[in-house]
């Protein structure tokens, strides 16, 4: 018996896992930040499904807005590519 919540959680957790792996393995750091933001968006949907609207309200601005902005400032001022 599959409820829609469980199916959606499965989808979003899978998206988060894939994009977390892509973010860690990506050599171009700006792309890594974007992948990390996608992973965070998937987690935001997961939090909504888990019955936590408070966490969604704090999580979306923090991890989709502020972290990428700060990291992009850092990357623009330092190095853009990670050497293997």
């Amino acid at each position, binding site marked *: 018996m599959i409820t829609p919540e469980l199916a959606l959680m499965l989808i979003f957790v899978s998206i988060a896992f894939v994009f*977390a792996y892509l973010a860690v393995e990506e050599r171009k750091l700006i792309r890594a930040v974007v992948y990390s933001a996608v992973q965070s968006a998937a987690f935001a949907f*997961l939090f909504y499904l888990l019955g936590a609207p408070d966490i969604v309200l704090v999580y979306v601005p923090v991890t989709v807005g502020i972290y990428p902005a700060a990291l992009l400032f850092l990357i623009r001022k330092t190095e853009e590519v990670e050497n293997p």
Partner: protein
Amino acid sequence: MIDIEVFIKTFIVLALFGTAGVGLYGVIAKPHATKKIISLTILGDTVNALAILLGYRYPGGIPPVYTGQPPNEFVGSAVDPLPQALVLTAIVIGMAVNLLIIYIALQTYRLYGTLDTRLIKKLRG
């Protein structure tokens, strides 16, 4: 016969563990400081998600905000508010600490001219 519901539940928990492991792998194995910071945010987010998942009530958890339904129904179906309260502060404080780490990385780049930890390790003085 495999119970599909148990499979999905186990998959969700294990995928979260796997994501935490990916974040930890990035923190340990990747040489670039910016990549370490990105991995650290992934690790922190995943641990927070696991904490929220611990407080989830299945089937049919509703958010812990009282909206005027019968009290027994609310207490009997709302999810656990305590992990949410802890994670709420953890996210904001974690963001402040991570921004401090970003500032320190920026200062490191100004002083050493690189953020590659292998190169920083070789520099002396």
